[in-house]
């Protein structure tokens, strides 16, 4: 499916609206990975492929991406984070076929992906498994266990790291500096690409690198991407949107898009 800048803007606006209406934070990390999820779901995933969102706190972006594909309705999104919803703050256990696992505690998704890939390998079935982690999530020891296992068993898992440089209570470099992270993946002898995580074509091209073993795409992103006062600000990891900041964010996104369109024409 063609992923136009209009559709990307529409998804970004819908994400902000959903978080604003529900009074929910975690918007920064959702904005940093929205382009990756849109690129993956619109341009890369095929019917036999599966995706696991390991950074479960970006459930909003995943829900909006599924909405952009017509797999969740506008009415579904209106229930986000509200009483009796199936769209909980982190991905739910059941009810949405495109979400195989409830996640939220970090450091689970890559091992779950390895399990899905191992099942395909044992059954001789086709299909690739994609997994998105955050960068702060690489503090978790279980991720490294999974990397060892995935590499050793030559499992067809493509790991995407949303490298926004910020985590819950500070910058990744201040808390537990893992740079150069891409080099660490390469040290495992896993093919690793680094891309601009907000360039959906570059992300898609990196994700389409086909092979039957593991691969890593380190996607350089900005937390709060597209909204200047949120960009690279770790406060927006948690903060909910006030009415004023919501309207400010919407105006800014629309005006950037208008400028971009004018420049193109």
């Amino acid at each position, binding site marked *: 499916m063609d992923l136009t800048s209009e559709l990307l803007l529409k998804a970004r606006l819908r994400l902000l609206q959903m978080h604003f209406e529900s009074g929910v934070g975690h918007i920064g990390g959702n904005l940093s990975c929205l382009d990756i999820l849109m690129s993956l779901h619109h341009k890369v995933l095929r019917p036999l492929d599966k995706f696991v969102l390991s950074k479960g706190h970006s459930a909003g972006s995943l829900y909006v991406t599924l909405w952009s594909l017509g797999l969740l309705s506008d009415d579904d999104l209106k229930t986000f984070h509200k009483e009796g919803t199936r769209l909980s703050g982190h991905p739910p256990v059941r009810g949405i076929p495109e979400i195989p*696992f409830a996640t939220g505690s970090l450091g*689970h998704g890559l091992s*779950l992906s390895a*399990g*899905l890939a*191992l099942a395909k390998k*044992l059954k001789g079935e086709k299909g690739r498994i994609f997994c998105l982690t955050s960068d702060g999530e690489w503090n978790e020891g279980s991720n490294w266990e999974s990397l060892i*296992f995935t590499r050793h068993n030559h499992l067809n898992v493509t790991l995407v790291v949303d490298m926004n440089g910020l985590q819950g209570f500070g910058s990744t470099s201040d808390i537990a500096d893992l740079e150069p992270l891409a080099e660490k993946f390469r040290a495992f002898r896993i093919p690793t690409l680094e891309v601009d995580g907000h360039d959906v074509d570059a992300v898609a091209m990196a994700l389409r690198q086909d092979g039957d073993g593991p691969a890593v795409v380190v996607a350089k992103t900005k937390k709060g991407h597209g909204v200047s006062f949120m960009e690279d600000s770790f406060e927006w990891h948690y903060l909910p949107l006030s009415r004023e900041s919501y309207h400010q964010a919407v105006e800014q996104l629309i005006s950037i898009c208008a400028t971009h369109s004018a420049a193109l024409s």
Partner: protein
Amino acid sequence: MRNAFCSTLVELAANPAFVFLTGDLGFQALEPLRQEMGKRFINAGVAEQNMVSVAAGLANDGLRPWVYSIAPFLYARAFEQIRNDVCLHGMPVILVGNGGGYGYGVMGSTHHAIEDYGALLSLQGMRVYLPAFDSDVREAIRYLMGAAHPAYLRLGLSEQPKWFSPPPFSAWRHVLAGRGPTIAIAGPLAGGILDALRQSDLSADVWLVSELPITELPSEFLSSLRRSNYLMVIEEHVCAGGFGQMLSHQLLLAGAAPGQFVHRTALGYVSGRYGSQRFHRAECGLDPASIMAELNRAVLA
């Protein structure tokens, strides 16, 4: 029980959905299974958290993963993976913990499993199987291979007395009929107690429980309690979350609490010293001599 465990799984190895994962354990025990299963036998290395989540991923795709390690390395190390990835999703992953209770003896406290089923039974949909004899292991495995829920199989050493022929594996088994105190035991330590009772003049009514949580109270067991008005529960597990707490809760709900209730449990490390499984049981009053002393006191009282 490891040999019974291995040989039974070897018999079932042809099932193409069956996948066996070990956390780098099974030396001089699981080699025949490895041989039989080929690529479906996976040594996941010393990485239990990953292993459990991988199993959940396999189960999500319709396979039947069994995950094996020394008990605490599984239920304690990978507790969140069991909670989130296996139990919240109702995945039929079979966790096999070797060395139930003080089974690893003088190897030390890190290897003991005295809070395993209490911890695991707090999780959604989890069921626990406590074989007491080798024949139980074989029957439990055959059931578990088709089970549709998460499960924990606690392995130990079979202590089956030579004279005793176990009834078929089930949640409740009436293993010794008698007139005196009513006794409910979970796990292989039942063997030594049955043997001690046979050698004494004391008559007791003994029940063996091998599946938790308790979902029923057999009417014959309730009759026994009404008659004896005394219940002793014995388990190689701490009191908190243990079989005795579950059973007493059920009895209170049923309005069937006996006049006297004695609960023999694992007590941790009473002297701070280490020894065999027998040593630790004795320190906790779980050895047949201590149990018999308590029963004789109750009978004479």
